[in-house]
C-alpha cells in the first residue's frame, strides 16, 4: 500500500545546489515546496568540523560524501554492442549524497562558459562552414544566449561570493583577468585568491610564451563577505581540504552557507531527507506530471502529489529517472532517434608535471580547491580551428588544490611502481613538483548516451541506468593539440624534467577523472533533438523541469557549476514570472 502525502505545489527531486536555489526562490514566491533528498541532513556545524574533517582516507579514498553504489549505481560499457557491467565501486566520477549535494564537497572552481558555447552549432557553421565537422559530432545550440544568461551568472556569483579577477567588463578588457571571457556586467564580488608558487611559475612561463595567465575564479572566498540574502562567508584559510570535504571555516560557498538557511527558514519549504525517488508519476492523457514516488527511510513507498516536479538530481540521474518513469522517447543509437539519454558528454582531461628535483619547495599542501593560475588561450572561442579537424578546447591551469599524499605523490615516468626506487622518488618529488592540468570540452557523439540496463537492478528492483561512453575522435584530436601546448609551457617552467599524461586509451570507469558529467536531458530549440526547452521545461510534460548539467547539449572546456547555478536562476525566473501565472508550455512547438 502506497502512502499518500499531502499535495504540494512543487516537488524537487534532490537536495543539492539547484534544489536549494529553487527551494528558496519558489517558497518565497508563495509556493509550497518539498525537496526529496536521498541522503541525510548535513550542516557546517556540527558535521563539517576539524580536525576530523581533514581525513584523506575517509573522504577522498573511501568516498564518505559520495553516492552509495550498493543502493544504486550505473552499468558501463565503452561501445554499443559490448555488455555493460555495473560500476561496483566509485571511480571515474563521484556523485554526491546528502543535503547540499556535490556543492558541499566541490573544489569551487567557478567558470563562465564563453558566449559561443550557447550557440555552438550556429557558430561553427558560420565561422568554419557547415561541412567542417562530420555528422558524428552532434553539437547543438542551447536555445539561450550568453547575453540572456549573463545577469543570472552575475547573480549566482554574488550569491556564492565568487573571488576572481575580471577579464572583460562590459566589453573592456581588464589587465590581470581572462581576456577571453564573455563580457560581464560587473566584476567579481570579491578579489582573486593569493598566488601559490605553482601558479606563479606557471604564470611566468605562460606569459613568456605570449599567453594570458590569470587567477582561477574561486568559490573559496577571499574576504569576509555578505551575500545578497545576508549570508556571511569567511575568508579561505588555504587548508588544502576542499574536494571532497566539507569546509569548516564557512569559507567555501555551499548551499548550506549561502542559500539553504533562507529556504529552511521559510515555512513553505521542507527538506525531506532519506527519501529515495523512484519515479515521476504522470497522467498519460493530460500530459502532466502528478507527483513523485519515493522510498522513505523505513522502506515504505510514498507518493508525493505535486503540481510541478523539478528534477534536481545528479546529471546522470535526471535522464535516468525520466527513462524509469517512461517520460519522453528514449534515445536509440541504432536509429539515432529519441532524445532522452542523448548527447551524454563528459570532460576531456590531461595533465603534466614539472619536476624541480629539489630545486624548489612547492608546499603542495598549502592549497585550496580553486587556488590556481590558468590560461584560456586554447578554449573554444580563443583560437582558430581551421585545418585542425576538431571543435572545442579548454583551459590549462596550475592548480594547487591538494598535497594529500595517498593520492598526491607525483613521480617521473620510468619510476618503478613500488619498492625502494618508488619510495625514494616519492620522497624526492613530493615537495618539488608542479602539476598542470588541461580541462577540455567534450563533444557529443551518437554512440555516447544514457539508457537503461537490461540485466542489472538497483536495491529497489529498478533497472540500473546504463552509460555507454568512450572519448570521441574529435576530443582525442583536441586533447592531443592542446596537451602539446601544455607540454610547451611545462617545458618553459624551468624544471629538471617534465611528465605528460596524454589521452591515448579508452575511457575507463576506474580512475577518478572528474565529476563533470553532462547531457542526457538536453535543452534546445527542437523537441526532436532535445528534452527541455530554453527554460529547462520538458517538451513532453509542461509541469516537469530539469536542472543541472543534464541539460548541457555539449560540455564546454570549463567546470560546470557557474553555468548550472545561472541556469537554475534563469529557470526560477521563468517559473515565477511566466509559468505560475499561466501554466503551460513556455515555448510553442
Amino acid at each position, binding site marked *: 500500500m502506497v502512502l499518500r502525502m499531502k499535495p504540494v505545489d512543487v516537488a524537487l527531486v534532490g537536495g543539492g545546489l539547484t534544489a536549494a536555489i529553487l527551494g528558496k526562490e519558489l517558497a518565497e514566491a508563495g509556493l509550497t515546496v518539498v525537496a526529496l533528498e536521498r541522503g541525510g541532513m548535513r550542516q557546517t556545524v556540527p558535521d563539517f568540523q576539524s580536525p576530523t574533517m581533514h581525513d584523506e582516507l575517509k573522504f577522498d579514498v*573511501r568516498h564518505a560524501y559520495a553516492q552509495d553504489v550498493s543502493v544504486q549505481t550505473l552499468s558501463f560499457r565503452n561501445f554499443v554492442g559490448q555488455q555493460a557491467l555495473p560500476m561496483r565501486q566509485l571511480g571515474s566520477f563521484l556523485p554526491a549524497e546528502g543535503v547540499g549535494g556535490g556543492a558541499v564537497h566541490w573544489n569551487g572552481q567557478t567558470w563562465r562558459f564563453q558566449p559561443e558555447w550557447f550557440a555552438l552549432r550556429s557558430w561553427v557553421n558560420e565561422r568554419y562552414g557547415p561541412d567542417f565537422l562530420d555528422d558524428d559530432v552532434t553539437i547543438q545550440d542551447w536555445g539561450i544566449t550568453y547575453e540572456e544568461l549573463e545577469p543570472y551568472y552575475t547573480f549566482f556569483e554574488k550569491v556564492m561570493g565568487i573571488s576572481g579577477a575580471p577579464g572583460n567588463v562590459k566589453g573592456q578588457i581588464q589587465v590581470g583577468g581572462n581576456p577571453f571571457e564573455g563580457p560581464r556586467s560587473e566584476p567579481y564580488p570579491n578579489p582573486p585568491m593569493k598566488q601559490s608558487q605553482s601558479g606563479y611559475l606557471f604564470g611566468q612561463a605562460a606569459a613568456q610564451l605570449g599567453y594570458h595567465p590569470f587567477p582561477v575564479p574561486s568559490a573559496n572566498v577571499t574576504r569576509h563577505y555578505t551575500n545578497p540574502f545576508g549570508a556571511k562567508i569567511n575568508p579561505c584559510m588555504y587548508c588544502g581540504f576542499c574536494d571532497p570535504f566539507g569546509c569548516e571555516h564557512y569559507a567555501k560557498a555551499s548551499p548550506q552557507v549561502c542559500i539553504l538557511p533562507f529556504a529552511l527558514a521559510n515555512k513553505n519549504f521542507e527538506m525531506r531527507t532519506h527519501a529515495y525517488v523512484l519515479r515521476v508519476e504522470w497522467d498519460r492523457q493530460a500530459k502532466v506530471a502528478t507527483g513523485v514516488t519515493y522510498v522513505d527511510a523505513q522502506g515504505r513507498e510514498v507518493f508525493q502529489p505535486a503540481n510541478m516536479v523539478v528534477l534536481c538530481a545528479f546529471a546522470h540521474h535526471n535522464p535516468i529517472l525520466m527513462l524509469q518513469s517512461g517520460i519522453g522517447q528514449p534515445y536509440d543509437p541504432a536509429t539515432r532517434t529519441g532524445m532522452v539519454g542523448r548527447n551524454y558528454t563528459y570532460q576531456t582531461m590531461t595533465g603534466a608535471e614539472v619536476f624541480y628535483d629539489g630545486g624548489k619547495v612547492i608546499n603542495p599542501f598549502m592549497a585550496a580547491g580553486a587556488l590556481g593560475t590558468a590560461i584560456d588561450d586554447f578554449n573554444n572561442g580563443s583560437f582558430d580551428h581551421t585545418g585542425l579537424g576538431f571543435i572545442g578546447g579548454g583551459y590549462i591551469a596550475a592548480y594547487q588544490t591538494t598535497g594529500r*599524499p595517498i593520492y598526491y605523490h607525483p613521480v617521473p615516468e620510468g619510476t618503478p611502481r613500488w619498492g625502494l626506487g618508488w619510495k625514494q622518488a616519492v620522497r624526492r618529488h613530493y615537495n618539488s613538483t608542479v602539476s598542470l592540468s588541461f580541462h577540455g570540452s567534450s563533444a557529443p557523439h551518437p554512440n555516447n548516451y544514457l539508457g537503461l540496463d537490461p540485466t542489472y537492478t538497483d536495491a529497489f528492483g529498478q533497472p540500473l541506468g546504463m552509460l555507454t561512453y568512450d572519448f570521441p575522435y574529435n576530443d582525442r584530436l583536441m586533447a592531443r593539440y592542446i596537451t602539446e601546448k601544455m607540454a610547451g609551457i611545462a617545458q618553459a617552467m624551468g624544471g629538471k624534467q617534465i611528465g605528460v599524461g596524454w589521452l591515448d586509451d579508452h575511457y575507463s570507469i576506474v580512475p577518478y577523472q572528474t565529476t563533470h558529467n553532462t547531457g542526457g536531458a538536453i535543452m534546445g530549440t527542437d523537441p526532436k533533438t532535445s528534452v527541455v526547452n530554453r527554460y529547462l521545461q520538458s517538451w513532453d510534460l509542461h509541469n516537469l523541469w530539469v536542472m543541472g548539467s543534464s541539460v548541457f547539449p555539449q560540455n564546454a572546456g570549463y567546470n560546470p557549476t557557474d553555468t548550472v547555478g545561472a541556469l537554475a536562476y534563469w529557470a526560477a525566473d521563468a517559473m515565477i514570472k511566466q509559468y505560475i501565472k499561466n501554466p503551460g508550455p513556455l515555448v510553442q512547438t
Partner: protein
Amino acid sequence: MTEKLSRRDLLKAAGVAGVAATVPETASTEAAHQQVAQANLPPAVGQPPAYVPGAPVERGVLFFLNDEEARFIEAAVERLIPAEPEWPGAAWAGVLNFIDRQLAAAYGAGARMYLKGPWIPDAPPQQGYQLRYTPAQLYRIGIAEVRAHVTANYGGREFWDLNAPVMDEVLSGLESGSIQLPSMPSPVFFETLLANTVEGFFADPVYGGNREMVGWRMVGFPGAYAQYVDLVELYNVPFTRPPISIGDTGARHAYLEGHTQAGHTHGAQKR
C-alpha cells in the same frame, strides 16, 4: 642555527615577504623567507623517527587476519615500501595493522560496493572491479592462493621465508599476471594490496598505519593543519613544524592558534 627571532621580527619578515611574493623574487625577499624558515621550531617534518633498522616490528591486535595471513602481509608490504637505513618501511609503519583493521571493518565487508550478480570476472579493465568478493574475501582467498603458488614453486617454502629479490619476483609475477591464481586475476589481488599499502603508509595514524606519521615526515606533509593562509605566498620556505594527526588531542587547539582576536600570525613559531 643559533639565533632565534622574536615574534615581532617574524611578523615583520612575513609581512615583507607577503607583499613581495606577488612580484618576482629578489634577494631581500629570499632573505626574508630564510628568516621565517629558520624561525620554525622545532624542525619535525622531514625528520625521520627514532628507529632501529632490523629491530622487530611491534604488531598490534589482529581483528581479521590470522597469524599466517599476517606474516604474508607484513612481508609483502615491506617489499612494496621497503625500509632504508634512515627511513623505515611499511612494516615498521604499521601497514599490517592498517590493512587488518580496514578488512575487519566496513571496507572489508564491501560496504558501499555494488555486489549483485550476474558476475563477469574476466571483463576488460575499463569496466573496473567485477569479482564477487568483498575486499576481505579477496584477501583471504588471494593470500591462500599466493602461498600455495610459492610453496609449490619455491621448494615448499613460505613467501615470508624467501629472500627479498625472490619475494619481488613473486610480487612482479602477480602484478603482471604471469602468475595465475585459481580464483582471481592475480593483478587484481596485487593492485588491491598495493593501493591499501600506500593508504596505510600515508593515511592518518588513527587508522593504525603511518606510525609516528612516518609517511608524512618522509615526504614533508604536515597532516591535519587547518590553515596556511599566511604562508601560501612565501615561496621556497620549508615547512618544518611537527605534523598533526586528527587524533592529536592538541590538534583542535593548533587550528585556532594564529586566528585569535589579536589578529593573524602565520603560526610558524610555536606549537
